[in-house]
């Protein structure tokens, strides 16, 4: 084994390097995220996070092109090879258009017009300096002064450098500290790992390496699985128009440097800059209403499903009824039918009952849960029948036996079923989508509201993501509190079979 030693050390160093990278990345982003949330709630952005509207950008681009045209014609010999200018990047669009843009606008008498959509302006066209300027400025968070240098390359002018003297925001000030903290934690971890390595007897160092590798693989797995949600939270704090701008140097750095809570305000219709809603219904047509609707639907449904399932399970487990086993087998067999097959007839029935568009319609067809009965029966089978007999001898009625003996004993599993049913109705998108009456926006639930919102504001990604938080955060918190119930409940059906 002695000749293994150099390989082991190389492996160890490589794993340490990976560990350092992961740890700096994770802690750096998490700490930055934490700072960002605090900053976004306590500090107004130093500059208006609203980027110049797309129309101004197009104009900006046109102006520059026309400026160069004019410049070329004023200089027939085409001897000028180099141009420089400076501009102040400020919060209003007029101020943005000032600096060299406004100056040349006055000089050449150009008017502002034209449109370009947000996505398009990200297309980098090497012949158009202005677009590069646009990109560059926003990548640099649009703060402070910018000095531009243009260089002639044959027929076209190209942007050579942009120099920024940046304003320092709270995020910038805390950035160094955050980074320092992330590095300190990472170094600490590395030191601990090295100490452990040195303490490990040589014979067992190979196992130590394997464990280290295992941990790193798992951590990377968690990062991959959690990335979409972290991205969602980070994007929810990005200002409108900046959602899709990444840190060019490090695309893994996804936490915004200029956070804002405007997205949340907007999806709740609480942003004063939004056009004032006079219509009381339209005013309420926001995600707080959807949230309450979803909460109502899911809670009511979960309550009734649990109650009905418990009653049915009680019969199947503890009471006598002719053919009850055959009936139970039949119920289980229906579980094999994909729920989608019931969509059309259930929709017809609900609508013929005149329930379409009501909250009742959103859960009524799903109240009979065979899964729930199955789950509760499994548990009730473990309750000794002698307990029930004792209660009956004491003169308890059937309902009393059920409510006083069975329910308290089965409480953990009932709670589990309640949570699972809540979850099912919280995310029961398709059914809620088809029975929602869109003429009455106050009956919309969260998933339907999100789908609708996404259809209307396709490019407002920050707002879509902040709206998503209303669905994700409560469930994630609930999961963290009651994960034992969730995991056991969801996997129980399989394990018991």
């Amino acid at each position, binding site marked *: 084994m002695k000749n293994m030693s150099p390989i082991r050390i190389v492996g160890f160093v490589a794993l340490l390097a990976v560990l350092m990278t992961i740890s700096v990345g994770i802690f750096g982003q998490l700490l930055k995220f934490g700072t960002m949330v605090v900053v976004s709630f306590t500090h107004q952005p130093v500059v208006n996070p609203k980027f110049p509207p797309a129309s101004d950008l197009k104009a900006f681009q046109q102006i520059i092109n026309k400026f160069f045209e004019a410049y070329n014609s004023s200089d027939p010999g085409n001897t000028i090879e180099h141009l420089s200018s400076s501009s102040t990047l400020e919060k209003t669009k007029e101020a943005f258009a000032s600096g060299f843009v406004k100056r040349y606008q006055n000089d050449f008498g150009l008017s502002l017009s034209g449109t370009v959509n947000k996505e398009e302006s990200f*297309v*980098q066209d090497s012949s158009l300096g202005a677009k590069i300027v646009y990109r560059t400025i926003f990548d640099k968070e649009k703060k402070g002064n910018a000095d531009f240098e243009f260089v002639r390359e044959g027929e076209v002018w190209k942007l050579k450098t942009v120099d920024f003297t940046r304003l320092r925001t709270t995020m910038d000030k805390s950035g160094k500290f955050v980074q320092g903290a992330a590095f300190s934690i990472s170094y600490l971890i590395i030191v601990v790992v090295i100490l452990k390595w040195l303490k490990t007897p040589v014979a067992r160092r190979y196992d130590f390496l394997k464990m280290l590798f*295992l*941990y790193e693989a*798992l951590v990377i*797995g*968690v990062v*991959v*699985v*959690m990335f*979409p*949600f972290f*991205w969602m939270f980070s994007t929810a704090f990005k200002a409108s128009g900046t959602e899709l701008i*990444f840190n060019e140097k490090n*695309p893994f750095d996804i936490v915004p440097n200029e956070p804002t809570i405007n997205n949340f305000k907007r999806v709740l219709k609480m942003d004063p800059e939004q056009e004032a809603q006079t219509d009381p219904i339209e005013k309420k047509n926001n995600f707080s209403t959807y949230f309450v609707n979803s909460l109502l639907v899911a809670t009511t449904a979960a309550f009734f499903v649990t109650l009905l399932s418990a*009653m*049915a399970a009680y*019969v199947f487990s503890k*009471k006598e*009824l*002719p053919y*009850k086993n055959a009936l139970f087998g039949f*119920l289980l067999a*229906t579980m*094999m039918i*994909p729920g*989608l097959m*019931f*969509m059309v*007839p259930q929709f*017809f029935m609900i*609508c*013929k009952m005149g329930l379409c568009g009501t909250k009742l319609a959103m859960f009524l*067809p*799903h109240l*009979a849960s*065979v899964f729930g009965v199955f789950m509760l029966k499994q548990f009730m089978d473990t309750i000794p029948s002698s307990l029930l007999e004792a209660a009956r001898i004491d003169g308890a009625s*059937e309902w009393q036996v059920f409510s006083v003996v069975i329910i308290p004993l089965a409480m953990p599993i009932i709670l589990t079923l309640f949570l699972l049913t809540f979850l099912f109705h*919280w*995310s029961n998108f*398709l059914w809620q989508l*088809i029975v929602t009456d869109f003429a009455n926006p106050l009956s919309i639930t*969260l*998933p339907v509201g999100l*789908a609708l919102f996404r259809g209307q504001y396709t490019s407002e990604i920050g707002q879509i*993501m902040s709206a*998503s938080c209303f*669905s994700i955060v409560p*469930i*994630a918190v*609930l*999961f963290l509190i009651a*994960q034992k119930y*969730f*995991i056991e409940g*969801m*996997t129980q059906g*399989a*394990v018991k*079979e």
Partner: protein
Amino acid sequence: MIVSILKMKKENFSSLLFLLPFLLLFGIFLLFPIIYSFFLSFYGSPKDFSLSNLEWVGISNYVQILGIHQTPAGWKLNDPSFWWSLVVTLFYGGISIPLGIAASLGLAILLNNKLAGKNFFRSAFFLPNVLDMLVVGVIWGLIYAPKYGALAQISTIFLGKDNFLNTTGLLGSGLTALPAVVIAMILKGAGFGMILFLAALQNIPEAIYEAADIDGAGKWEQFRLITIPLLKPILIFMVITGVIGSLNAFTEIYAMTSGGPQVVVGGETLGSTSVSGYYLYKQFEGGKYGYAAAISYVLLILTLIVTFLQQKLFSAEHR
């Protein structure tokens, strides 16, 4: 004797009372729809989206779904989109079930070690399972987006600007859209299978492996000959739920691809991710209620056949 019969009756009566609310709802909303759907499938589509003006069309819905007609170019399917949606569903299940099992089994094996913080990893991998499918789909749709999506941005540092992820995006091509949806769904759902596999792995006594070690079996042989057979019940469960999941797939497709991108197969333009659930929804959304009912019926029959085959297969393997 009489007293006991009376008691029996009373017992039955109270049993029925307890069962009644559940049975009533079950009968109305799960049993009756199966018959009602059959009845609806003989009606046509209303022109005005109303539910009352349905016109009796006999079996023509079924003829349209399943039949073929002659054209100058030869025999053609009446509704190629339907058959295509079955193919896509098959692909969807065919990719997602094995990959899902592999991912969750892999995670379970990684976690089946003496680890500090095992519970943390368990919870972290399981968490996405409980989150809303639509939201997860929307997020992944944006991550996959070309040019500005997270994946496109990250790929540019490794592959340059001209790479496929940046120009077309995984969801932009008919070839990669379905696998991309599958990957997103596996990352969401792998934790579920992981928990199942982990529980089963922990139930395998260490002594079996030790005995195998003594007999000279290698790690791979131990895995193939001991672990896999002992995990068979879980594997079967994963396959069955995977099949039902593929037939039920809708929200992820709705959120991520809307059935597209379009591909041309045999002269027909078809949605490359239009699984049967999504196709059914599209018919329903278009007001073709009778047609949608007929499709659900055909799918129901197909599901029964698949379930039957599965049971035959698995019970035969058990023996």
